[in-house]
Structure formats: C-alpha cells, structure tokens
C-alpha cells in the first residue's frame, strides 16, 4: 500500500473510531508551534487520543495568492497533526481534503453534541 493511501486509511480509521466512540475529541488551545510566527487563523482546535497517539484536528484559515487575478484571498483547509506529549507537532497532513472535511464534520458533531441537542429541542414542549 502506498504511503498516501495509508494516510487516507488512517483518516477513515479516525472517522470510524470517532463514530464508535473509541476516539474521544475535546476542544483545546492550538499548540504554540502552530500559531507562532504566522498569520494563519485557527478558529477551533480539537485534540484526541487514539492507540496511544495524540492527534490534533483543526481548520486553518490563511491568505493565498491567485496568479490569475494577482490578488490575495482568504481560503481554508482542514489539517490533521500528530503531536507528542509536550504538544509539539511531529507530523501534519492536509492532503485528502474530502476525507479530512468529513472527519472534521464528524468531530464537530460529536463535540457539540448537536444530535442530542436537536432531539431534545424537537421533543420538548413547543414554546
């Protein structure tokens, strides 16, 4: 199996573990190494532990430059990082945006507990 295929499988495994509850995510501050010396914006940083490894997942908003219009514009990407216990980033990937966006959506869903919230709101007495 190629290395990029392995990364894709890892993202799918994380998504699956998130769904089954094997992997619990929580909101945390982004490691200093990710925010220091850069204009990138990280609105929300999730961290989770899976098979003795610490993972971080976040949306990175950054300014890019368009060659066609010769102008800068804001764009974003989802990034998955592997961090050590000192919160240092050992590895990061932002390839396979479709898989990462699905994972990010699943994590947001879990952390916000939106499904339960909607059930509660819709089952309650009408205002």
């Amino acid at each position, binding site marked *: 199996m190629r290395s990029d*295929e392995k990364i894709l499988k890892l993202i*799918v495994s994380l*998504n699956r573990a*998130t*769904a089954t509850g094997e992997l619990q995510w929580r909101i945390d501050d982004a490691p200093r190494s990710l925010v220091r010396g850069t204009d990138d914006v990280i609105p929300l940083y999730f961290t989770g532990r899976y098979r003795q490894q610490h993972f971080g997942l976040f949306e990175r908003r950054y300014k890019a430059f368009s060659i066609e219009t010769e102008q800068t514009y804001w764009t974003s990407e989802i990034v998955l990082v592997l961090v050590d216990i000192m919160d240092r980033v050992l590895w990061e990937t932002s390839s396979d945006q*479709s898989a990462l*966006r699905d994972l990010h*959506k699943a994590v947001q869903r879990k952390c916000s507990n939106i499904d339960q919230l909607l059930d509660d709101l819709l089952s309650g007495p009408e205002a």
Partner: protein
Amino acid sequence: MESVLPQWLQDVETTLSLIGFVLTYVVFQAVREVRLSFQRRTRLPEIRRDLVKFASSLSTALAASDKESVKIEVRAATAILKTARRLLPKDDKSEVTAILRRIDIAKRKNHARLAASNGGWDFYSDILLSIRVLEQAIKNVRWA
C-alpha cells in the same frame, strides 16, 4: 463487359478509395477524442463534486448507523463511478474499475455486509480513493 478505363486508372481509384476509408476512420477517431476531451473537461469536475457529496453523506450515515441511507448512498455513488469510468483516460480507468470490482464482489458476497459497518467504511475509503484519482485526472485534462 470490358471496362473503358485502363487498368492503371482503376488501380489508382481503388488505392484512393482505400486511403479515403483510412482517413475517414482517422477523422472519426479524432472527432470522438475531441468530444471525449470536452466531456472530460466539463463532466469530471461535476462527477468529483457529486462523489465528495455522496462520500460526506455516507460518512454521516455510517456514523449514525443508518443502514437505509448507507444503501442509498452506495447505490448512487456506484452509478456515478460507472459514469466516471467511461470518461476517464485509460490509466486512471483501471483504478476505478478495480474499485467497482471490489464493490461488485462485496455485493455478491453479501449485500447486507455493505450496509454493515465494516463493508460500509471500506466502501467509503474506496470512494475517497476514486475522488483522488478524479482530482489527478482533472488536473491532467486541464493541462492537456
């Protein structure tokens, strides 16, 4: 009845009609290739967008263990993958064919397995792989 035309002229005529036939075939192939190239430019990005959407829905359905939705997304994505296979260049076609073959085998073995968590997540991985193949094909077509 004996021909009024000399034999050499008949030979030239036959040769020219053979060349004409070959040229017609070459033009037909070229037109087909141009048409396919236009289809690739317009349809492949659309197919990619659809697959991304189906993958996302499938991921949500799998997380919620919604078997009925999983089946629907699998069926829809399979149909789109078949269209993609028709449009993709030869090299990329083989990867999508391999993915479709895996789906067929999984379906034949046990249709319910696809909806179960293992088969469903495997299928989800396959869709993501095919999205990657499409992304590369779109880039190649853009610069072709």
